[in-house]
């Protein structure tokens, strides 16, 4: 399975957020899109996921165009972002059941518990989201994104605010999804983490792609450092 963005152009009024970006993410690999703030990373992720229509260009999955207005496409994707997107007044189980039903998948209590345990959130099922720590919420958000076994998983700065234990759990979960054949697209400003996790890296700067290659290429870190100067990250 291959997800491609071809010649993506996006404008916010007079500001060009993406200027003809080509990007390709294949199954069994993690693609990291990195770059400094304002580089166009999140816009590119929104275009790839179908949340935003590009002003020009197209997104194709295995050669077939996909669009956010297509419910069948939305059924095949999952998203984890820095905002967890969970309802604070509902319990973990109520949140997961709500989204599972919207996705049209039946999930009984045992399956939900298993999904939560898989992301290191076992034992949280009956607690309200407002009572959870940032790290716990993010694990529940990850569980929510995996409920319907998406074929393409998008992650938009998912490590923001996570403690080391939570970050490690998320990294393990991503590696598992990758090994199971899921296309994983990770947007992060954290260059080092992107390089460590990803199989391929795309660097954006001012809406343009300035690097696209294997994360393990010799000297990739130095090249990326040069291209993402000012991007931050440890």
């Amino acid at each position, binding site marked *: 399975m291959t997800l491609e963005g071809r010649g993506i152009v996006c404008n916010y009024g007079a500001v060009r957020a993406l200027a003809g970006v080509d990007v390709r993410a294949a199954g069994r690999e993690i693609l990291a899109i990195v770059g400094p703030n304002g580089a166009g990373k999140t816009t590119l992720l*929104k275009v790839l996921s179908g*949340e935003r*229509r590009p002003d020009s260009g197209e997104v194709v999955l295995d050669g077939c165009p996909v669009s956010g207005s297509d419910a069948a496409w*939305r059924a095949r994707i999952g998203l984890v972002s820095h905002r967890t997107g969970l*309802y604070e007044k509902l319990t973990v189980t109520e949140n997961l059941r709500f989204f599972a*039903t919207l996705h049209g998948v039946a999930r009984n209590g045992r399956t939900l518990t298993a999904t939560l345990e898989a992301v290191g959130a076992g034992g949280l099922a009956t607690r309200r989201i407002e009572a959870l720590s940032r790290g716990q919420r993010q694990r529940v958000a990850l569980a929510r994104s995996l409920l319907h076994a998406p074929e393409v998983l998008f992650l938009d700065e998912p490590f923001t605010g996570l403690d080391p234990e939570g970050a490690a759990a998320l990294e393990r979960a991503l590696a598992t999804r990758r090994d199971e054949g899921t296309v994983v697209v990770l947007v992060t400003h954290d260059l080092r983490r992107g390089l460590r996790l990803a199989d391929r890296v795309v660097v954006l700067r001012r809406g343009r792609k300035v690097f696209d290659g294997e994360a393990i290429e010799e000297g990739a870190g130095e090249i990326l450092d040069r291209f993402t100067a000012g991007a931050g990250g440890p």
Partner: protein
Amino acid sequence: MQELRWIWLIARKDLSLEFRAAGRLLSMIAFVVLAGFLFGFALDNSQVSGRAVVASLIWLTVLFASTAGAGRIFDMEEEDGAFRHVLLTPVSRRAVFLGKTVANLVLTWLITALSFVALTSFLGVRSSGSLAAHAAIFLPGTIGLSATATFFGRMSRHSTLGDSLLPVLTFPLLAPVVFFGATASARVFMALPWDEISGLVRLLWAFAIGSVTVGAVLFHQLTDE
């Protein structure tokens, strides 16, 4: 069938959130009761009888309270970006709109019942017509009101003007609902025959069906970038 399931799911979720965030509902109830209390004081009974104005005051109270509530339903969605995740599921935008309209409608019914009791009590008015006749007028009126407020509640969230934009957008559109509703309700209070009321109720139903249909068809324009 799937569509109905989604509508029910979204409405139930919104109502759960509303009832669990009790402060919001309590403030709405307090507004209705205080409005009735103040209207009772403000009216000079020696010049104007309560029976002559009670219907208009009920409809205006319902309009103000329910319009304020419509925006809040989307505030709850934006608290931690939940709406983005809802829109990324296969759920249709039509079902999202209808689910939220149903949730708004239930809350509007609560407000309507409370307004009716509060205002008739504070103004010392007893309806000569039946409660069923009142319900037959409020049903289409509140459906139209809730659908319109839901649609523009979402639209106002797109604007930097936020809550202040909602009355500007909705009140001109809802003026006919208030006019037809208040006139019909006043005639029930005066126990006029149904023949003199049914035409207004038909207009309220036409507005209700129109606003639900237009909202369901156009809602995706407010959700998709």
